[in-house]
Each structure stands twice: as structure tokens, then as C-alpha cells.
């Protein structure tokens, strides 16, 4: 029982962190129909910035700075690497995204010298707490709460504000929105800003829990978050969050299965198998809307 709770706790915590990244994916995909491969790496860079800033600045100052700079990074990436390709085929944009991801990873290798970096201990978040006989960090408990709060806030933003309305319009019909005078570029920028800010917050939570950062640290969580976004129905924020939690929990359950079965190695493979299954049988995901092509 204690063991089951500990597995569930890990699952919720992992899922929560995927959720924060997945929201960024789902927002961007919903609007640009672009798999932003670089998103996971933005998350990794946010983690690295966290390390470098806390080394010289107090935490209360450095964390906001990390968020601001990550937002700036996300914004810049969009402006430099995606905007010029707005009318290019989708494949080009995706290649550009892969290129950005490659660049961020290589730059991180250069800066860190390839060494795994240690994320600083953040007071309170890193503190431990005992849940039903299992010791865990506070961050594990706080992540899901924070995620849910953010989902509510984001839903409000999207459903109640002017920017949110524009975002919905753009994701429904890009061309028409443009004709209707919606400033597409600012809507897209806002999307990237929100996504990056969430990635920054996600990085704080994730790396407090798993404190070693390597240049590849963002790739896997990034891909899984994308799978979560697809699973939940791309474009749907609650979908992405639920997808992320399902994937996180499934993953830890697989890891936690008896060793004699020797299946724990497939925790990542499972995620991808799930992706293929969902794409084949329910391509619109759990909460997405089916789209028809115009001839």
C-alpha cells in the first residue's frame, strides 16, 4: 500500500511537470499547427538559467528573472525562426523547430562543458513531507495544485479576454482571422509568451525534484509533453493536462511493475505506443475536435 502510494505520488508529480510543458505545446499547435520541437529545450535552458542566476543572485530575484528571460527566449525564437516561415510549407517550419532545438542543445553543451549541472535547492519546495508513510518533497504536492490553478487562469484568459478570443479565432481559421483584422503576429507572440512562462515555471518545479540538468534534459520531457497534448486533444488545455497526468502516472506504474517482468525499460516506449494508438484510433484525442479538409 505504502508502495502503491509512493508510485502514485511520483506519477502525479511527473504528470504535473509534463502538464506545464504540454500546455505550451498545445497552445502553439492549436494556433500555428506547428510541433514546436524546441519547447522542451526552452524548458532545459530555463533550468540552466536558474542555476546560473541563483549562483550570483538571491532566489527571490533570480526566479522572476528566469521567467522573464525564458519568455524573452520563447518570443525571440518565434520571431526569428518561425515568423519568417509563416507562409512556407509546414515541413519547413518543423525543420526550423528541429534546428532551433539542435542549436539550444549544442549551445547548452558548450556553456556547461557537457557536465551535468546541479539545480539549486529552493527553500520550502525542496523540503520534505511525509504522505501516508512515504517521504516526498513539497514540490510533489504543490505541482498538481499549481497546475490546476494555472489551467483555471488560462481558461479564463482564453474564454473571457479579448486576447483569448483572438487566440480562439486564429486557431479556428488562420486565414480568415487574418482577413478579419486580427493581428496574427501579436496573438502568436502572446501564445509563445504564455507557453514559455509556463515552461519556466515547469523547469523550477521539475528540476527541484530532479536536480541534474544535462543538455538533453529537455528533449524527453518535451516529447512526452507533446504526446500528452496529442492524447488530450491538441488545442485543448484541460485535455493536455489530463493527458499529461495519465501519461505520468502510467509511466511510473510501468517503472514500478515487478522487476521480474523486466518491462520497466519500456516506460518511454509505452508513451510512444500510446501516441501511435491514439493517432490511429482517435486522432482528435480525448477532447479535441475533428477537422475536415476543404477541397
Amino acid at each position, binding site marked *: 500500500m505504502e508502495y502503491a502510494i509512493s508510485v502514485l505520488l511520483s506519477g502525479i508529480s511527473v504528470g504535473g511537470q509534463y502538464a506545464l510543458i504540454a500546455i505550451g505545446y498545445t497552445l502553439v499547435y492549436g494556433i500555428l499547427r506547428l510541433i514546436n520541437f524546441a519547447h522542451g529545450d526552452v524548458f532545459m535552458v530555463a533550468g540552466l538559467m536558474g542555476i546560473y542566476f541563483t549562483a550570483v543572485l538571491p532566489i527571490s530575484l533570480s526566479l522572476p528573472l528566469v521567467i522573464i528571460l525564458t519568455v524573452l527566449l520563447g518570443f525571440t525564437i518565434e520571431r526569428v525562426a518561425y515568423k519568417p516561415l509563416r507562409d512556407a510549407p509546414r515541413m519547413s517550419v518543423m525543420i526550423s523547430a528541429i534546428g532551433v532545438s539542435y542549436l539550444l542543445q549544442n549551445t547548452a553543451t558548450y556553456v556547461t562543458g*557537457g*557536465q551535468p549541472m*546541479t539545480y539549486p535547492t529552493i527553500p520550502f519546495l525542496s523540503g520534505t513531507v511525509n504522505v501516508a508513510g512515504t517521504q516526498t518533497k513539497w514540490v510533489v504536492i504543490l505541482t498538481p495544485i499549481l497546475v490546476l490553478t494555472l489551467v483555471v487562469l488560462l481558461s479564463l484568459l482564453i474564454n473571457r479576454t479579448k486576447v483569448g478570443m483572438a487566440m480562439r479565432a486564429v486557431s479556428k481559421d488562420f486565414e480568415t482571422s487574418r482577413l478579419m483584422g486580427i493581428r496574427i503576429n501579436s496573438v502568436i507572440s502572446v501564445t509563445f509568451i504564455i507557453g514559455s512562462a509556463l515552461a519556466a515555471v515547469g523547469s523550477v518545479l*521539475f528540476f527541484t525534484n530532479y536536480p541534474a540538468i544535462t543538455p538533453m534534459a529537455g528533449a524527453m520531457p518535451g516529447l512526452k509533453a507533446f504526446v500528452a497534448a496529442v492524447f488530450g486533444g491538441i488545442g485543448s488545455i484541460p485535455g493536455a493536462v489530463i493527458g499529461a497526468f495519465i501519461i505520468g502516472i502510467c509511466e*511510473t506504474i510501468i517503472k514500478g511493475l515487478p522487476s521480474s517482468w523486466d518491462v*520497466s525499460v519500456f516506460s518511454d516506449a509505452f508513451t510512444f505506443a500510446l501516441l501511435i494508438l491514439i493517432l490511429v484510433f482517435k486522432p482528435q484525442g480525448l477532447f479535441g475536435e475533428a477537422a475536415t479538409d476543404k477541397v
Partner: protein
Amino acid sequence: MKRIIAVMLTGIMTLSLAACSSAGSAASAGGGASSGGDVIRIGVFEPSTGDSASGGKKEILGMQYANSETPTVEAGGKTYKVELVYADNGSSADKAPSAASELVGKDVSLVLGSYGSGVSMAGGPKFEEAGLAAIGVTCTNPNVTAGNDYYFRICFLDNFQADVLANFAIEKFSAKKAYCLGENGNEYDQGLVAFFTQVFEAAGGEVISDSFPTNNSDFTSYLNKAKSEGADVIFTPVSIAYAKQIMEQAASLDIGIPFLGSDTLDDNMVLEATKDTNLQLFVSTFYQEGGSETFDKGIKDYINNNSDALTANGGNDTISAVTAMGYDAYYVALEAIKAAGSGDKAQIKGAIPSVKWDGVSGSIAFDEVGDAVRDTAYIKTADTSTGTWAFEKVQTGSGK
């Protein structure tokens, strides 16, 4: 139009680079032609990017220090300046062959490295083809030297190391049940786990093992599993980044089971992760700080007086065993050059098997496969209050 510009740019880039590189190779070719001159090059085949970069850099550090200590070698009545030539094998098997041929192309007399067995095995055939001897420093996989006449090594092998740790677990903790955790697809981890399992089960123990996927970051499920299975020891022969994660997460879970690690865990980044926790970590290693005071003092000075070296060592002056091994490897190379009497690669290759050297990590001699004859390993433990390594014991294997 753009296309034409692109082609032109590419052309210019290509030309300038070709010019650049041919200038470079011309220079080295000139050096090669005058090998009767006064320079002997030693190739350093190590990762400085990729997963194993951290270990590779520390190994290079030992060689650099040794090189700064003894920059010349006397052979055949002449004094040669020894120059280290580096090639980054990128910790990956697909980059290793080109890094190896980079060294061959720079006309080195012999090669040292690599940290990591996979890259050594990938580069090995290149050295063999070129008739160039390579001395492995800390590549512990049996297949590095087996079937390759030109590969030697000064470290012990995986099976020996696993044997030592299994015996240690039985002797020290009277362990009956061990939990092993390695990275899926990493031959180092899986090899050690397999050998450990053999020895431990032969001694009547029970082994549960798991593998985690590459780039995994959540280890709490595995650790909780070990706990709920009632393991007496946890054996984690993983690379540094994972070891660090595992230690951090084990600390927050209050796991309370002793950890056994292989030589990769002998790293100050792992050590740091155990500081101010109640973790028990024991690692088997090639060298224990304090083994040679002159070396300890010398290398610490070297590290502290050189900011690049300090960064490479992870920001402090704790001596990693691989650094000591790199240091010894350099001297073994010098001995081989002396015995060969020149910088000729074929003669050096012929001389290596008979080289004997009393290094800081113990005395080194080679057996017929080219492996070092070693029968002891050091076990050390992390002192969690001071954040240093404490010597535990000298451990021998079960003698198999």
C-alpha cells in the same frame, strides 16, 4: 537568385575551410616527415562532449598534469618533447571512428583513452588498422582488448569490479538481497549488473534488477521498489549524471539502504549530492586520495592554479580516480616510448606488453590479452558530513 548566393557561400566556405584544413594538415605532415626531430605526439582519445564528457575531461586532466610534470622523454639517446594531441570522440560510437582517424592523421605515436568502453571499441579497429597502439585508461569492458592486438589497458575489468563489489556487499552488509539499477542500452551498466548478479547469486544471494530508459529523470519509482522489496543493498553502476539524480532522489525519499557504485560514481559531483544527507554510498575505484601524497599535492596545485582545469574538475580539487589513472597512463606511455627507443608506432606497440610501472594507482603490468594485471580495488565511502571520500578498505575479488 538566393540559390546562387547559397551555392556561392557554400563554395566559399568549403574552399576557405579546405584551405584552412589543408594548411593544418600540411603543418602536421611537415612535423610527421621530420619525426627524426624532437617531438613525440601522444594521442588523447577522450570524450569532451556528450554523456561521458565529465569523466573524459577528468581523465585528460591527469594526462595534462603528468605532461606538465614530465614534458620530455629520453629514448634512444635523444630527448623528445612530448605533445598531447586531442580528439573528441563525442561519447558516441558514430563519432569515434572519425576522431580516431583524426589522431592517426596527426601522426601520433600511440594513443591514450578512452573513458567509456563503447567509444574505445568503436575507435579500436581504426587504431588496429593503422598499426597504432592504444592504451585504455578506464575502459573496463572485456571486449575492448579482446580480439584487438593493439588495444591495451591499465585498469581492471568489469567482471573484476562487479566481483569486488558483490563480495564487499556480502562481507560488509551480509547482504542477501540486492537491487541493481542500470541504464537500458548502456553496455557498461548492464555488463556490471550481469557480472554482479552472477557472483551475488553464486554466493546464495537474490538479485532484482531493473533498467531505466535513456534520459530518464524520475528514479523515485525504482528506489521505492527497492525499498518495498526489502533490498539490503542497491547497486547502481550508472554514469555520473544519473548517479547524481539517484543520490538526490534517494536522499529526499529517506531510503536508508546502502548504495554500491562502480568507478563512475567516484566523482565529486556524485559526492556533492550525498553531502548533508544520511545516504550511505560505497564505490569501488582505481585510486584513493592519499595513496600518493606527492601526486595529491601536485595535482591539487595544478588544478587550483588553472581555471580551465578547475572547471574540468567540476569546480573543486577533489581528485577523481580517473585523473590518477590518466596520470599513470601517461607514464606508462613514456615507459613504452623509452623501451621502444623512438617514436615509431610499431616499435612502441611491440614494447608495451613488457612495460612495468609503479603508478600512483598501483603497479601496472600487462597480461597476454593486453589487460592490466590487477587483483585489488579500493573501496571508498562518501563522508556525508564533510563531503569528501573516506577510505573504506582494499577489497579483493572472490578469486574467480
